[in-house]
């Protein structure tokens, strides 16, 4: 099962930025190695913004366009500490993707990021297995609180 050509890799390698801090899992008190994140969103704007947010914090990250690509990338053997999951996406939405990932035994922190305000949708997302939910837009402060929770989880 190959990875769709629509997926693009955006490594957190902006070494020219003096403000870039490597977000090492070891500095979070967990096992050694960098924190790796997966951004799952069909919106180009949010892909760019979430990638840049993670990049600026030195978090290596990949971006995919829908839930199926998120599942496929895990089937290929890649692992992530953090998955930022949107809800409404073509091919496979975030709720179904979360369910499939949990069924596969994926224990990454999955944070739902969406514009949905309907309670029943949020509840369905939580029931599918996300660890927490944030309404868009995702800010640096929200992301830092998520990353700190990964620290405490480790």
């Amino acid at each position, binding site marked *: 099962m190959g990875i769709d050509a629509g997926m693009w890799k955006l490594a957190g390698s902006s070494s020219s930025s003096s403000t870039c801090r490597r977000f090492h899992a070891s500095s979070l008190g967990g096992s050694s190695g960098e924190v790796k994140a997966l951004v799952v969103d*069909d*919106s180009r*704007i949010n892909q760019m*913004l979430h990638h840049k947010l993670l990049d600026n914090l030195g978090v290596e990250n990949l971006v995919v366009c829908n839930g199926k690509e998120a599942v496929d990338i895990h089937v290929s053997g890649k692992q992530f500490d953090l998955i930022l999951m949107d809800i409404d996406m073509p091919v496979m939405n975030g709720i179904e993707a979360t369910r499939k990932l949990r069924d596969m035994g994926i224990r990454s922190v999955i944070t739902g990021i969406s514009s949905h305000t*309907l309670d029943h949708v949020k509840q369905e997302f939580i029931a599918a297995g996300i660890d927490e939910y944030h309404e*868009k*837009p*995702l*800010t640096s402060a929200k992301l830092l609180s998520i990353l700190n929770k990964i620290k405490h989880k480790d």
Partner: protein
Amino acid sequence: MALRTRLHNYIESLKEEGVLDSQYDHVKSLQPDDDPCFLVDIINNFCNDADHSIGELANVLSEPIVDYAKVMTLVCLLKGSSSSIGGCRMAVACRQLHDASVNGDLANCCMAYDKLVNEYYYLRDKLKTVHQMERTIMHNEERKKK
């Protein structure tokens, strides 16, 4: 420097008007030193994607049987991108259309859609001005380096 000041004042006026909020500053702060086109690209992508979604919404709302689930999906996309770029008034208009579509109320959906379109065109117009000013600043800075 004068153009930078003018751009800053323009953005502040848009915030006072309620068109943009502090999220815009947050987006701008993400711009890396080695990628001066970042903000311009964000604005471009926002406008291109929103143009498409607004058009799709018009099509869906004009169907004999309206697919409200599709309306909600498109509105969520618009709300997400507009709030992510700091377009708070447009995000509020998206919320109103979303609420009308939850209730399956076509009349209110159409009114909310018209309001959303107005807010989007207004925001797009302002962002295009920002876009032009940013590009001029970039161009001037590149000329200075040479």
